[in-house]
């Protein structure tokens, strides 16, 4: 196989120049986005001989040039965007490769019980898709990302301490799995790995898709989707790509030059992420008036709950900064009983200080989060402060509202069910710390201006389901093959399609589901048959 990195580098540089000279164009398949949900269909369809154009709203990223080991907020804010409300905020990435250059590399399969979740009518959210149905696609995704379980001698100290705490309570704790090769433990995973160890999409799917014929344009935003011709014409009976008409046009804007142009496509695959895909559909509603009412609703968010403590004297030192960003260990102890997984947080000061203020006790009638008391606490931050967090199978209650073409706001009603989840999960986390002799530390999550957020607040990078898969248009936006109800030829293959919380990081499931949808697309539209790794092996 050719060198992915070199291949990627050459092509990505080429892409950069093409964006300034584009004209109105046609393609068989337009893929919107370049993250976990978009990369798999791009690769599989182009391998199958389909003409694919991929557009990415964010900038081109050349790892060797653009990644930095830094704590500079400006660097992060260049790629990472947040949409927030008092109870709920979602962070997502804009850039080539979507969130993959900036995630923690944790790559876990969702537990069986995630696929067994039922709605209020006792129907399975995932339909006939079970963990065993997904496993071959997980296999494929893991192979592409070189996912491996962390070696025993590479577990960061924080992970070892976490495992020891669980051991002392008689609980289980497992070594987690990561998309990385040759990790040097710099601790700068989420600023983009400058050592080329992280297996982001920039070193596998995207360069391979380019090599197979996919054309990728960066800094291109899709403004809206509009059907071409009559509905009856779009609903073709053939899957022979050459006979399918150009069914949709997408108004695109070059964000660097403000130049607008139109792409006409036979099929559109939406892979711009849970926020991006929902926003585009909402902006397009004027033209796609028969879309499901569920667009922008049913957002699942893996209900992240955190707690902070100071390690007991008889526990060894943790280390917030050395070793990979994720601490290497995860506990499934409370998965069956409470629907949660638990891990520790390893985080550089920038991420902790920007996200929360914390204090051990009140001094002078105020929380000691700054001044002498706050400073003493920060001196314990690296080795003795310990943060636990849980991810859970919380219900899909989040919503998105389009306030203008460019402003989208989330909403989450803190129901009694969520309140109970938050409280019981927090009690479990606190109990793990206190029964290990640790002292709890008070904390408040902060908004971007240093002010406290609501006490029960869910922040996530794992949002999924804003255009979920379902049996029919009354329950969701797309069918289980990813096709949008009432709009044949428009598919959604990203996090927006995933209907439930997963209780683990969502990236691998989004990718595996995208592989599953891509597999069905290749069956329908592919011209070559060699690119069916799942079906040929199962």
């Amino acid at each position: 196989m050719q060198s992915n990195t070199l291949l990627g580098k050459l092509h990505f540089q080429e892409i950069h120049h093409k964006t300034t000279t584009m004209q109105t164009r046609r393609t068989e398949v337009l893929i919107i986005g370049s993250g976990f949900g978009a990369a798999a269909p791009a690769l599989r369809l182009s391998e199958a001989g389909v003409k694919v154009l991929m557009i990415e709203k964010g900038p081109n990223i050349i790892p060797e040039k653009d990644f930095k080991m830094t704590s500079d907020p400006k660097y992060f804010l260049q790629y990472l965007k947040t949409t927030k409300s008092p109870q709920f905020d979602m962070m997502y990435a804009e850039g080539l490769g979507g969130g993959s250059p900036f995630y923690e590399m944790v790559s876990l399969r969702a537990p069986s019980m995630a696929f067994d979740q039922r709605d209020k009518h006792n129907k399975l959210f995932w339909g006939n898709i079970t963990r065993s149905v997904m496993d071959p696609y997980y296999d494929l995704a893991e192979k592409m990302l070189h996912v491996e379980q962390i070696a025993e001698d590479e577990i960061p100290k924080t992970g070892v301490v976490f495992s020891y705490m669980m051991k002392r309570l008689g609980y289980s704790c497992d070594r987690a799995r990561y998309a990385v090769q040759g990790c040097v433990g710099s601790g700068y995973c989420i600023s983009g790995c400058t050592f080329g160890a992280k297996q982001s999409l920039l070193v596998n799917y995207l360069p391979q898709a380019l090599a197979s014929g996919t054309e990728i344009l960066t800094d291109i935003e899709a403004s809206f989707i509009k059907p071409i011709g009559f509905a009856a014409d779009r609903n073709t009976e053939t899957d022979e790509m050459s006979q399918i008409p150009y069914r949709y046009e997408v108004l695109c804007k070059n964000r660097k030059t403000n130049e607008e142009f139109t792409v006409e496509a036979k099929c559109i695959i939406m892979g711009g992420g849970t926020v991006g895909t929902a926003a585009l559909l909402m902006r397009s509603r004027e033209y796609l008036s028969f879309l499901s009412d569920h667009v922008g609703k049913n957002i699942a968010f893996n209900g992240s709950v955190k707690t902070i403590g100071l390690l007991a004297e008889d526990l060894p030192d943790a280390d917030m900064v050395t070793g990979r960003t994720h601490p290497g260990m995860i506990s499934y102890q409370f998965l069956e009983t409470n629907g949660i997984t638990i891990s520790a947080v390893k985080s550089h000061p920038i991420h902790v200080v920007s996200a929360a203020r914390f204090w051990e006790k009140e001094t002078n009638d105020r929380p000691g989060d700054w001044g002498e008391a706050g400073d003493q606490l920060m001196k314990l931050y690296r080795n003795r402060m310990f943060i636990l967090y849980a991810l859970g199978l919380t219900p899909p209650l989040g919503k998105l509202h389009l306030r203008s073409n460019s402003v989208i706001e989330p909403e989450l009603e803190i129901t009694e069910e969520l309140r109970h989840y938050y409280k019981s999960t927090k009690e479990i986390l606190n109990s793990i710390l206190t029964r290990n002799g640790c002292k709890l530390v008070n904390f408040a999550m902060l908004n971007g201006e240093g002010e406290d957020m609501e006490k029960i607040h869910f922040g996530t990078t794992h949002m999924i389901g804003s255009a979920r898969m379902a049996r029919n248009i009354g329950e969701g936006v797309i069918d289980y093959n990813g096709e949008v109800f009432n709009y044949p030829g428009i598919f959604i293959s990203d996090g927006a399609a995933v209907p439930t919380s997963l209780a683990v990081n969502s990236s691998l499931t989004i990718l595996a589901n995208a592989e599953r949808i891509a597999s069905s697309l290749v069956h329908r539209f592919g011209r070559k048959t060699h690119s069916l790794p799942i079906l040929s092996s199962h």
Partner: protein
Amino acid sequence: MTATPTTMTRRNFNKGVLLSLGAFIAGCTPVKILFKAYPDEFKHNHSLQDEMLRAFAATIVPGVDRNTPKLTQIYYDEYYPFASYVPFFISDLDSRTKKVFAGRSFTSLSQSDRERVVLDAFRNGDSIIQRIYHGAIYMTRLNIYAGIYDDSRGCPHINFHGTSQNFVPDQMYYPNAKQYFARQTSLSGNPS
């Protein structure tokens, strides 16, 4: 006693309006900010600004050396909205100090007295004042603890080394980690 009749001349009327407006400006934080209604020295005297901001940074993070390079850079960084509030913030810090400590200057106070001044802003300031002080504390902590303007330096004060120091495994991992491991539920690391 009978009320003395007053004659409202045009001059008196204008004077009254101006006085009211002046009182309004002096008392209302947004208007003070909008009209830059604070002494000129806080707008133009950069050494005074720098001295006060260093004292403020040391109030929030007492262990920091006031002479640390780039200690005040974040307050002036126009990427962040706080930059436009710096003169107002300093003037408020100064007037608050004079009110609480009878004419003394913020930079001359002890650590605990400077903390009292900041606390006074939260207890007696309006919502805008509180917001500005929240922002100032937030930025101070970000700047110092995360070392955002010097990646290679990090923050020695909290033993954060900044960019990777090419640690060897013995520094990053426990050599005998396995003895600390809890029971594992899967061979692969995936949940069932």
